[in-house]
C-alpha cells in the first residue's frame, strides 16, 4: 500500500487541495490545509509559462517566481512537509520543463528523496511518457495522468496505461479556475471512467464551493480544489493560513460527509 492508495481506500471521499509552492508562507499554508482536513496535497511547482492555467494560478506562479522560488525550494518544502506529516500523500504538479531540466532521473530521485508520492505533469501526455514516466516509476513515484472531456473512449486506454496513484478527471475543457462543469456531465464522465479503471478518480477544475464539492464527492473518490485556495494566498498573503483553514474546513466537511447525507 502506498500513501495514496491507503488514503483513497478510506470509505469516505478525499479532499485534494492545491497551492503553489513559494506563494506566501508555504509551510504555514500547508499546515492550514492538512489541519483543516485536506486528505491529499498537490503542491504546484511554479513555472514562467503555465499554459493550462487561468489567471489565479498564473498569478500565483509569477508571485512565487518573483519571490525567488527555485526547484530546490520546492523540494525542501516537500521534504519538510514529509517530516511533519508522515502519512499525508503529497503530489507535485507542474509543467515539463522544470521537471526535466536536469534530466528526468535527477528529478525522480530528488522527488523520491523528498517523500513525494506522485507527480502530475500537465504537458506530458501518454505519447511523450518517455520524457519522465519511466524515471518516476523506477523510483516508486506515481505518474498521475489527466483525463478530460475530450478524452474519448478510443483514447482512454492509452491514458490509463501507465497511470498510477489516481486518475485526475479535468471536468471542463479549458484552463484552471474558469467555468465550472455541469454536475450531470461529471456524473456521467465518472461513471464512464469507473468502467475502465480501478484507479481512484479525483475530479477538479472549477470547483470552488463546499456545495459543488459535496455534489462531486457523491460520485467521485476525490475532489480537487485549486484556484479558490490559490486566490486566498494571493489576496491575504501572510494572513492566508487562517482563511485557508476556514475554506478547507468547510470543503472537507462537505466532501467527507457527502455520501452519508446521501444515505440518510
Amino acid at each position: 500500500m502506498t500513501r495514496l492508495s491507503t488514503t483513497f481506500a478510506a470509505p469516505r471521499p478525499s479532499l485534494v487541495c492545491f497551492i503553489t509552492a513559494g506563494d506566501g508562507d508555504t509551510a504555514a499554508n500547508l499546515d492550514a490545509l492538512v489541519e483543516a482536513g485536506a486528505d491529499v496535497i498537490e503542491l504546484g511547482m511554479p513555472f514562467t509559462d503555465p499554459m493550462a492555467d487561468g489567471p489565479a494560478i498564473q498569478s500565483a506562479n509569477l508571485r512565487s517566481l518573483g519571490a525567488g522560488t527555485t526547484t530546490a525550494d520546492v523540494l525542501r518544502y516537500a521534504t519538510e512537509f514529509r517530516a511533519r506529516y508522515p502519512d499525508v500523500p503529497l503530489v507535485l504538479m507542474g509543467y515539463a520543463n522544470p521537471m526535466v531540466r536536469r534530466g528526468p532521473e535527477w528529478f525522480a530521485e530528488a522527488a523520491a528523496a523528498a517523500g513525494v508520492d506522485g507527480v502530475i505533469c500537465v504537458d506530458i501526455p501518454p505519447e511523450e511518457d518517455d520524457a519522465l514516466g519511466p524515471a518516476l516509476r523506477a523510483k516508486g513515484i506515481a505518474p498521475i495522468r489527466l483525463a478530460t472531456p475530450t478524452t474519448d473512449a478510443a483514447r482512454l486506454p492509452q491514458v490509463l496505461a501507465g497511470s498510477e496513484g489516481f486518475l485526475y478527471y479535468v471536468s471542463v475543457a479549458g484552463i484552471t479556475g474558469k467555468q465550472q462543469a455541469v454536475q450531470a456531465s461529471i456524473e456521467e464522465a465518472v461513471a464512464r471512467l469507473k468502467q475502465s479503471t480501478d484507479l481512484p478518480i479525483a475530479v477538479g477544475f472549477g470547483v470552488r464551493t463546499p456545495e459543488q464539492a459535496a455534489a462531486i464527492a457523491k460520485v467521485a473518490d476525490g475532489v480537487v480544489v485549486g484556484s479558490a485556495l490559490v486566490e486566498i494566498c494571493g489576496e491575504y498573503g501572510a494572513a492566508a493560513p487562517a482563511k485557508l483553514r476556514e475554506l478547507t474546513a468547510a470543503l472537507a466537511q462537505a466532501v467527507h460527509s457527502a455520501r452519508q447525507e446521501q444515505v440518510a
Partner: protein
Amino acid sequence: MNTHLNSFRTQPDDRGHFGQFGGRYVAETLMPLVLDLEREYRKAQVDPAFQAQFDDLLEHYVGRPSPLYFAPRITEELGGAQVWFKRDELNHTGAHKINNCIGQILLAMRMGKTRIIAETGAGQHGVATATVCARFGLPCVIYMGAEDVKRQAPNVFRMKLLGAEVIPVTSGGATLKDAMNEGLRDWVANVHDTFYIIGTAAGPHPYPEMVRNFQSVIGKEARAQMLSRTGRLPDLLVACIGGGSNALGLFHPFLDDPSVKMLGVEAAGHGLDGDQHAASLLGGSPGVLHGNRTYLLQDEDGQITEGHSISAGLDYPGIGPEHAWLKESGRVDYTAVTDDEALEGFQLLCRTEGIIPALEPSHAIAAVAKVAPTMPKDSIVLMNLCGRGDKDIFTVAEKLGVEL
C-alpha cells in the same frame, strides 16, 4: 514518403520527433485535437484539390512565385560572392507569413472550424492571419503581448482594419511567448469550433512539419528559378530565424543537395555574452515549451527567460524543433547578429538596392555582409528576403536618432 537513410528531408518520424526534438507536449485536453489535426492534414496533403486551391491562392492572391533577384550593387560593394535574394517581401501583406496562413486556413475550413485564433509578435503573422480570415469570412482573434501592441501600433491598426479582434496579453513578460500561452489557453477552452493558426515552425506536432511544408514553396521556387537562371545551385543559403519558418521554407527543398551550405541567423540582440539576446540555439539549451522539445532560453531551473531583439519578430525564447535537429546533425550552420549589425544591414540594402527590408531579414543581410566577401566571385549566396520594412521605419528612425 521515401525514407532512404542519407536524406535530411524525411523528418519528423511518425510521432513528430526530429531526433530528440519536437513531439507533442500538450495538455490532455488538446491531445485529441492535435491528433485530429494531424489526421486531417495527412488527408489534405494527398488531396490534389487541396493542393490546387493552395497553389491558386498563392498565385493570384499572394502574388507567387516571388522573384529571384540578383543584387548587383550589394554584390559589388561586398566584393565576393554573387548575392541573390528570394523576394518574399513582395508577397501580399509584406512577408512570408501569408504562405503558411493560406495553407492553414484552407485546412481549418476543411475541418469545419468556424473561428480562427493566432499569436503574433511583430504583428506580421497577425496581419497575415487577419488577412486570410477577411478573405474567407471567418472571425479572427489575435493574441499579442501588451508590450508588442505598443511597439507595433501600425500592425495593430492593420489587423483591426481587417476585422480581427486584437487582445493584448498582459501575463508574464507581455511579449510573443505570452501571446502563444494565451493562444493555447483559448484553444483548450474552445476546442469544438476553433482552429489555432500557429505562425512559425514550432508548437506541437504536426505544426512544425506542416508550417515547414507550407513555407517550402519558397525553396521549391528558388531552386527551380536558380537552376533555370544560372544552370546551377547556390553555394550558400542564408535566412534569419525567429521560430524558423522562413529559414526552413528556403532550406528544406535543398537539404539533400550536398553542395549547398546553409546558414541560419539568430538575433544576438545586445550580444551573446549577456542575457539580452534571442539566440535560442547559440545561447540556449534543450527543454520543453509550447508543445515541443527544442532549444530554449532558460535558467538552470528550467524557467523561461525573456529574449531581446531589436526585431519583435525574432525575440522568441524558443526555436522550431527541426532547427534544433539540423544544428545537432551538422547539416545547417547557425550564427547570430546583433541589433547594431542588423541596423547596418538594413541601411546597406536600402542604399545599394533600393529595397527597405524588415528588421528580421536585416539580420540575414548582416550575416551575408560578413560571409560574401570571404567567398569567390563565381560563388552564389541566396538569401531569403522574407519581409519588407514598412512596419519597422519607426523603430529604425528612433535608433538612428531621427524624429518623425
